[in-house]
């Protein structure tokens, strides 16, 4: 993936491709099978820039580390080997392997995000379908959406009196909006052609939903899901720093208290890689719904 592509991720998916020409253009590169030598060259052209980029990055890191207290790549790598050699140890609630910490964070994200999906996607459908509801919800959503997710943490702590549900609550709130808004946008953008098919056939509400509304909105829903998971994963680290318990965010905080900067750097990589994997998994799923 290139940086340019990353920037594009925030935009909603293009309207489902109905134009035969556009589809052909997408498919064309696959059909041309280059000879073996070309394949090797293509592979090198493909792999070289990212490898080079990484190398430059590590070099700069090493240079900065040489003139400061920051642990360098080698030192960090040694620590990482240690950390990952036993990711699932368990020495009481405040000292567990990085694997447990990541899994705990993921489970909070999963629960909070799952509940947000259960609420947000149906709500998005209703808002997109009923203009009245859209107008009614607009002021509430516009005011609440820009609020930093962490601002909801005290409310969560106050309501639930416990760290765990409060962290989940923050995830819930922060991943709600992208799903509501994208689903609603998807519903309002169902092509008139498809609506007309439903109208000519005079379909029952259930058929209309299952055969026309839902399938045409799925790509938008998945965009919402992807943005939501991204936000949730961003927020969980910060939330756990504040709430404590087992989790990658708390782990970072704990290492800061131990003044173990290598561990913090490792955590940053782990958070980044997990976030990337989450995003790729959803992109993979979304591809199946690209008609």
């Amino acid at each position, binding site marked *: 993936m290139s940086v340019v592509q990353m920037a594009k991720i925030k935009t909603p998916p293009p309207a*489902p*491709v*109905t134009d*035969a020409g556009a*589809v052909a253009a997408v498919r064309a590169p696959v059909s041309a099978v280059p000879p073996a030598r070309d394949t090797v060259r293509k592979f090198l052209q493909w792999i070289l820039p990212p490898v080079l980029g990484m190398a430059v990055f590590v070099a700069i890191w090493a240079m900065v580390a040489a003139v400061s207290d920051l642990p360098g790549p080698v030192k960090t790598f040694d620590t990482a080997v240690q950390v990952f050699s036993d990711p699932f140890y368990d020495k009481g609630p405040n000292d567990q392997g990085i694997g447990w910490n990541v899994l705990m964070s993921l489970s909070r994200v999963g629960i909070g995000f799952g509940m947000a999906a259960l609420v947000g996607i149906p709500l998005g459908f209703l808002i997109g379908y009923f203009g009245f509801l859209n107008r009614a919800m607009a002021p509430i959503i516009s005011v609440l959406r820009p609020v930093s997710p962490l601002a909801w943490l005290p409310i969560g702590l106050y309501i639930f009196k416990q760290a765990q549900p409060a962290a989940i609550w923050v995830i819930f709130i922060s991943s709600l909006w992208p799903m509501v808004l994208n689903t609603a946008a998807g519903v309002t953008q169902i092509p008139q*052609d*498809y609506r*007309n*098919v439903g*109208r*000519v*056939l*005079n*379909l029952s509400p259930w*058929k209309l939903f299952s*055969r*026309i509304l839902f*399938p*045409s909105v799925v790509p938008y829903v998945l965009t919402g899901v992807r943005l939501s998971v991204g936000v949730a994963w961003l927020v969980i680290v910060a939330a756990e720093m504040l709430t404590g318990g087992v989790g990658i965010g708390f782990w970072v905080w704990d290492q800061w208290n131990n003044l173990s900067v290598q561990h913090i750097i490792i955590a940053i990589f782990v958070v980044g890689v997990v976030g990337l994997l989450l995003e790729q998994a959803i992109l993979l799923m979304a591809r199946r*719904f690209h*008609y």
Partner: protein
Amino acid sequence: MEKFVQVENVQMVFNTRSGRFVALQDVNLNIRQGEFVSIIGHSGCGKSTLLNLVAGLTEATSGVLLLGGREIAGPGPDRAVVFQNHSLLPWLTCFGNVYLAVERVFGRDEGRATLRKRTEDALALVGLSHAMHKYPHEISGGMKQRVGIARALAMQPKVLLLDEPLGALDALTRANLQEELMRLVAGAGTTTIMVTHDVDEAVLLSDRIVMMTNGPAATIGKILDVKLPRPRRRLDLTDDPAYNRCRSEVLKFLYERQHKDAA
């Protein structure tokens, strides 16, 4: 003449960003049951607009449209539409697209096996048995149009509304489908309104040809009775004087209208 489809004093105005746009004005048309009527006119004159009004997809600004004496209040499966851009649902296979319509019309009285049979028959009719389980993006433009036609025919509608249904087809497929269409609607006695740009197609298939003037405020300029005996065979007609008279009359209308506008 008993009237089945009645279009009376219909006016259609669109509210556009640059103000009111009068697309149709004073349109009057009566169509008998079982009649085949073609609408021909220059691009953008309002043919699709008129068809949508009969379909009930849009509402006339003023005037009334009746079907069998009752006002057309909205769309319904008794008026099947073959859309200009085929409008297949991309997430359903060809079979699924046709089946959705079949199920809607006959699902109440028939079992699944019968519904499947109807769907398969409809696709066989347009020569697409082999592509039945393909998705719309996997087939050509002409094939998509044929699925659209199969979907409409399978509904056994009272009125069949066709918006340039054969536009994207090669000459041979087109000729075959024209004959197929002629046979089917004659057999079922389906009242048919077809928009077309093809003069030969209009003359071959129609009982009457409705020629529209250019927009804005387009209206029916002239109606031509095509008094050729049925069944019609393309090859017999090519040097039939009556056929050629009809043909040149339509051409003359289209040509002169264009001229008048240019002057």
